[in-house]
């Protein structure tokens, strides 16, 4: 039986810009099962980041229903969102977003610190995550002593550290050259094989095609199925 990790129903989000309103997300419905590797692709301004913020519980929708592992996120008060983010979401950003003053392992420990895990246990867990992404030997390096690909591996290890049900990646290869991008995609594939659910947002078709399932986003609406290439060209 396929288990649902998250589901969205009729999610809408609009931004007011003076007189005009931008409908960033327009009645979106989406269901993701455990173990899936979903890619969401769309051009700039199509609403990808807005969607990612809502999935990642950084922001809330205006209307609609969003259920993440049984929790009705859209009904939660702002102050509970931090805990949800900490437990249920592992963020992987385009520009890595590591803390420059902290070493690789300290960065990975961060979500565990906010979860209240004890120091010894924390170090052990962080190190095992670094090993999983093949960078355990760089644990004590500062981010600026690492290459882009290595930094992104650290960021992935940090996303993994709390063992969240969803890894949420926003253009994770956007700042990397094509060879390093491929390495990072392999890391993500491996994690997916081990059972991690991944949602990846990108504007790059070649990256998008590597998912198990691809959804297009355009003008705040989702389109699933059909020839991705064809439709994407049409949107342009």
């Amino acid at each position, binding site marked *: 039986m396929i288990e649902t990790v998250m589901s969205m129903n009729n999610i809408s989000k609009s931004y007011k810009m003076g007189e005009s309103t931008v409908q960033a997300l327009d009645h979106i419905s989406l269901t993701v099962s455990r173990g899936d590797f979903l890619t969401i692709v769309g051009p700039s301004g199509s609403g990808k980041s807005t969607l990612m913020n809502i999935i990642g519980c950084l*922001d809330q929708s205006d209307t609609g229903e969003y259920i993440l592992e049984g929790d009705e996120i859209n009904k939660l008060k702002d102050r509970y969102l931090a805990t949800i983010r900490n*437990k249920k979401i592992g963020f992987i*950003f385009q520009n890595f*977003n590591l*803390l420059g*003053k902290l070493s690789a392992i300290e960065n990975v420990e961060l979500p565990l610190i*906010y979860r209240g895990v004890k120091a010894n246990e924390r170090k052990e867990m962080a190190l095992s995550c670094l090993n999983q992404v093949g960078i355990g030997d760089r644990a004590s390096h500062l981010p600026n002593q690492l290459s882009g690909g290595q930094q992104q591996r650290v960021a992935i290890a940090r996303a993994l550290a*709390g063992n969240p049900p969803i890894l949420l990646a926003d253009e994770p290869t956007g700042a990397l050259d094509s060879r390093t991008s491929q390495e990072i995609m392999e890391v993500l594939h491996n994690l997916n094989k081990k059972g991690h659910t991944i949602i990846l947002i990108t504007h790059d078709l070649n990256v998008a095609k590597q998912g198990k399932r691809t959804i297009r986003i355009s003008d705040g609406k989702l389109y699933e199925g059909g020839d991705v290439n064809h439709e994407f060209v049409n949107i342009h």
Partner: protein
Amino acid sequence: MNLLTSIKMAFRTIRGNKIRAFLTMLGIIIGVSSVIVLVAIGQGSSQSVTSSINSLGTNLLTVSISDTDTPFTQDNIDEIKKMNTVKNVSPVLSSRLSLKNGSTTSTINVTGSNASYKSVRKLSISNGRFISDIDLDYRQKVIVLGSTTAQTLFGNKNPINQYVLVNGDRYKVIGTLTYKGGSNGQSNDDTAIIPFTTAQRLMQTTHITQFYVQATNSNMVNFAMNQLSRYMIQVYGDSDSFSVVNQQDVMNTMSSVSDTLTMLLGGIASISLIVGGIGIMNIMFVSVTERTREIGIRKAIGAKRKDILTQFLIEAIVLSIIGGLIGIGLGLGITKLYAIFSGGTVVYSLSIILYSFLFSAIVGIIFGVFPANKASKLRPIEALRFE
């Protein structure tokens, strides 16, 4: 997240930016150390004033006569002595003179007075005896040396029954005074005392122009003062020819002046502590803006508002506490140096040290709250987008 982890995290951040941390603390360091130094010096001078009161006696009146046409004599002194509010009267005649023992010379204040002078000025004899009334009757050339004077002229030798030359005349040393200490202009130890009548001859004067009156006790000082003034007006016809000064009043005034000064200095220094706190606030605000992205990242991976608030608050508190501790060290050091180089009295007050330390911690909390609150309120999406 527990407190210990927060504190560790704060130290981590502070260590990561030492120069900024130092500059942030500078205001607090200067504030705390100046409070400590200024109050220590102020209280020190208060204390030396107070000890002067005690060393002079609280029931002492000083009478100075400016009218030299009407002679004031031993008979007048005897009449004053008979008053029921008066315990002792000592006429004094002072002059700076050179004392000589062999080749050693010491120029000091030599005072001529009577046997009561010892009780009036609360002196005590460490060796030999004080001058007696018989010495006055026979104009004996005897001298009692202050402890410093004895040390200067005779070193470690016993000066008793030795002779010193005063203006070429031989004076027999009959006693030395106990070391009194205290620093209030006129030293009690750099002195010598001879019989009053001998001094009159030596200084070629027959008039009495100054004398001390010791009241029977400190409660009687005001009565003695009134009785004395009435008598003096009787002798001189008006109150312009003499003045009666209550030692206690002078000292009270001096001590209240120096207390006020201490409070003033402490107050000014406290203001600098507040300025130091504002310095912390400024730099924390800058730091919040600079670290907007960091705050966004932390929030994205699960930091609650409370976590960010405590992080920044603890950073501010740790900074001000470290600054406070450095300030205490620096303050005590400077005070010590001041005491060594100026020889002045200083008083280390534990309560002031604790007070300024607590104050710096409180300043850290108060001025840390605003930036910390700002940081905790940042919305994660906007903070993440911040460049």
